């Protein structure tokens, strides 16, 4: 009998391509033809976006209840925050001894002392740190005093300043967010600091010196569109004293109390046109600080006392009303993640449970490529789900929230990073779940492990139920580190604050945190490929 002659069809010609596209198409067909998974993905997107929108609405309602007056439109109900030249919310509260300066010019001074008073270490907050006997001598780390050149006395106006600080040496700061280090070390009578600020058009240059003879340029600050006449002079500010302690078993508690600082200046010299001839003292935005401040002039010697800070506002800090960041609007990510992880793990464990994996692997004996196709499909699908949900939460949520609450501004690049990053977080986490599913071959075990590894550290950290140090490390080494991709507001080294996941700050930089998740996913995928090749199906 001639086999070939009686064969109805010869075997299909082998395609020239390697057939990976066919494999991807097959896996996509598998995913879309299980209705439960499709519904699950849709629900995941809805819950994820919905929780964000609820947060937006919730932020508004708490505002309405505290209102009581006639309905106001726009952002009137939110806290009225001072906004800096860059559009970001700022604190601009300090004591200012000033004169107008017209045109170019410079101001030079020697600082011989920076001292202050801080609240008692343990005890009740004093009613007024200026008069209370409870305060003790001391400085907060970023107590600052020096020369400032400012567009006007309006809080939030452009400025450049060179200053001595308690613990961070000489700094040149400008427009609230920039910060450049100068000479290190603390100031004292034995080790004074000379400071100089020079205006030339839009460019403000800061210099420091230890002897008034040898000067070092610290840096320059450009203040675009600066008026011909500006206010320049001496200033002192002292940020709030924060004592934060994490409690055993959960939560942080602490107090944020005003502090004050006093600096002593001499050898004040000016060049350029200073039409007023005499100095006048003002508290800028007294309501924003403790209101403590003043100055004393005796001959060429000035003593300036102040409180408050000239710095960006940190998201999550008490600003007297509802403040939302875009991170808050993405709060549903953890819920979306759970849905995605379950479906991604089941995408392979369901095949093991039913024995269907044998059909899959018999149809495609190159097993590593089967896993790769599955990862590509589940990763792409969850990326799209995450992208839709995150876009809806951030754009719609911000629209809703902006009517009633203050939404922390973010640049479009930050917004893009958060939305795309959240989608990528879901996608890579899905690949991790798939890989673990392939390693463990059991739905429950795989889902439990990935949820514990990714979602649990995040929930623990947001709920602050573990000491901050432990949470910090959890968010560095577990796959949950990837939530750093959702950090909306930058962390400023020149501002002391409780930068916690609960307020939208993460220990790792956004893409570094995301890389931790990618590393875990790569590790699990590598293990999955080795095992699926080696094991009997």
């Amino acid at each position, binding site marked *: 009998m001639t086999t070939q002659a009686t064969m109805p069809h010869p075997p299909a010609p082998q395609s020239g391509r390697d057939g990976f596209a066919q494999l991807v198409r097959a896996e996509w067909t598998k995913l879309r033809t*299980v209705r439960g998974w499709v519904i699950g993905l849709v629900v995941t997107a809805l819950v994820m976006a919905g929780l964000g929108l609820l947060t937006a609405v919730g932020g508004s309602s708490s505002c309405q209840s505290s209102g009581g007056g006639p309905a106001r439109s726009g952002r009137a109900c939110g806290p009225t925050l001072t906004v800096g030249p860059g559009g970001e919310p700022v604190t601009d509260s300090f004591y200012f001894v000033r004169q107008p300066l017209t045109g170019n010019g410079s101001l030079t001074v020697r600082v011989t002392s920076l001292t202050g008073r801080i609240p008692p270490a343990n005890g009740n907050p004093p009613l007024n740190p200026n008069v209370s006997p409870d305060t003790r001598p001391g400085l907060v780390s970023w107590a600052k005093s020096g020369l400032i050149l400012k567009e006007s006395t309006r809080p939030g106006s452009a400025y450049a300043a060179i200053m001595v600080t308690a613990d961070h040496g000489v700094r040149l700061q400008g427009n609230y967010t920039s910060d450049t280090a100068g000479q290190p070390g603390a100031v004292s009578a034995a080790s004074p600091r000379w400071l100089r600020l020079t205006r030339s058009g839009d460019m403000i240059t800061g210099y420091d010196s230890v002897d008034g003879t040898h000067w070092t340029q610290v840096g320059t600050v450009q203040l675009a569109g600066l008026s011909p006449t500006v206010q320049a002079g001496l200033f002192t500010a002292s940020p709030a004293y924060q004592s934060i302690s994490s409690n055993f078993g959960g939560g942080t508690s602490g107090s944020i109390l005003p502090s004050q600082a006093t600096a002593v200046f001499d050898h004040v010299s000016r060049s350029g046109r200073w039409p007023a001839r005499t100095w006048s003292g003002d508290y800028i935005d007294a309501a924003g600080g403790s209101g403590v401040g003043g100055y004393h002039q005796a001959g060429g010697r000035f003593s300036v006392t102040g409180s408050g800070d000239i710095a960006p506002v940190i998201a999550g800090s008490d600003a007297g009303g509802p403040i939302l960041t875009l991170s808050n609007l993405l709060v549903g990510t953890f819920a979306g993640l759970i849905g995605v992880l379950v479906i991604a793990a089941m995408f392979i464990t369901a*095949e093991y449970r*039913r024995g269907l994996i044998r059909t899959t692997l018999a149809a495609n004996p190159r097993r590593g490529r089967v896993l790769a196709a599955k990862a590509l499909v589940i990763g792409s699908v969850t990326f799209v789900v995450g992208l839709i949900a995150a876009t809806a939460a951030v754009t719609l949520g911000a629209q809703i929230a902006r009517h009633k609450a203050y939404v922390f501004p973010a640049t479009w690049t930050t917004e893009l990073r958060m939305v795309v990053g959240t989608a990528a977080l879901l996608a890579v986490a899905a690949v991790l779940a798939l890989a673990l599913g392939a390693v463990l071959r059991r739905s429950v075990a795989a889902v439990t492990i990935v949820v514990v590894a990714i979602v649990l550290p995040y929930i623990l950290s947001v709920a602050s139920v573990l000491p901050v140090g432990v949470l910090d490390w959890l968010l560095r080494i577990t796959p949950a580190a990837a939530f750093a991709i959702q950090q909306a507001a930058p962390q400023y080294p020149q501002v002391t604050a409780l930068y916690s996941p609960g307020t939208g700050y993460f220990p790792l930089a956004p893409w570094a945190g995301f890389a931790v998740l990618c590393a875990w996913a790569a590790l699990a995928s590598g293990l999955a490929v080795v095992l699926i090749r080696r094991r009997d199906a």
Partner: protein
Amino acid sequence: MEATIEVSGLRKKFGPTLALDGMSFTVQPGQVTGFVGPNGAGKSTTMRVILGLDAADDGTALVGGQPYPSLRHPLSHVGALLDAAALQPSRSARNHLLWLAHSQGLTARRVDAVIEQAGLQTVARRKAGGYSLGMRQRLGIAAAMLGDPPVLMMDEPFNGMDPEGIVWMRGFLRSLAGQGRAVLVSSHLMSELQDTADHLVVVGRGRAIADTSVRELLAAASRDRITVRTSARSEAMTVLAHAGATVAATDRDTLTVSGLPPERVVALLGESAVTFSEMTPHRASLEEAYMELTRDEVEFRAQPAAEPVEEATS
């Protein structure tokens, strides 16, 4: 591609259990090869090794002269039905076939063709979870036929089928062989393969104990045996056993005699004046032949008392 399966010297251990112990046989095109043996004899393991799902510790398994894992679009070379229950229950039969087709670069048209071939047109869009075992077997057949392969391999395809389905399956397997395909069908029940298989590979304890055509096997099992019908059963047994024959009483008035030619039996009975009403050459059933072959290979078998045949030898 030559439509053959060649298995040679397969060995495989699962932990301490020796599943395959030198399994060797060849499946030829144009015939249905029955793959029979008691449960646990290594039939399913052999099939998984052929498909590259399980790795053998030793030996080779070739499909059309090539190892299965080296095949591109393997479903166009080998169609296999291993486990009819291996389905995602919430996926419809048609969608199950569709992803399988996509993985091989085949189209939905091919899917509809095999659905018709397996007689599933009316239920193809229903969830496979609601299928009876018989319907799942048909779906498994459809999946095996997707790539129109020259080699087919089915593990216990008759399981769960109703009588009508069994008739259909037999005809289907015969027609596949008639088209020149190589068809390997495993079963632990020989009766299922009666009138279906042309060739048999009988396995026990992980190796092939017979690799023969059905005709030869039956002839071997029937050889030299004579059925004698007599009312004087015990006298006949005494006479014939005394003459050196092996005599088994199969019924109240029937004896199966072997070891003596028919003429000698007639003469002996005549000499001793034992009357008999009928004497015919014995025709063994496939079941009987199989039982004989696997007698020593069945690992967990019932007490000998349950055997229908009692034997007496001198």
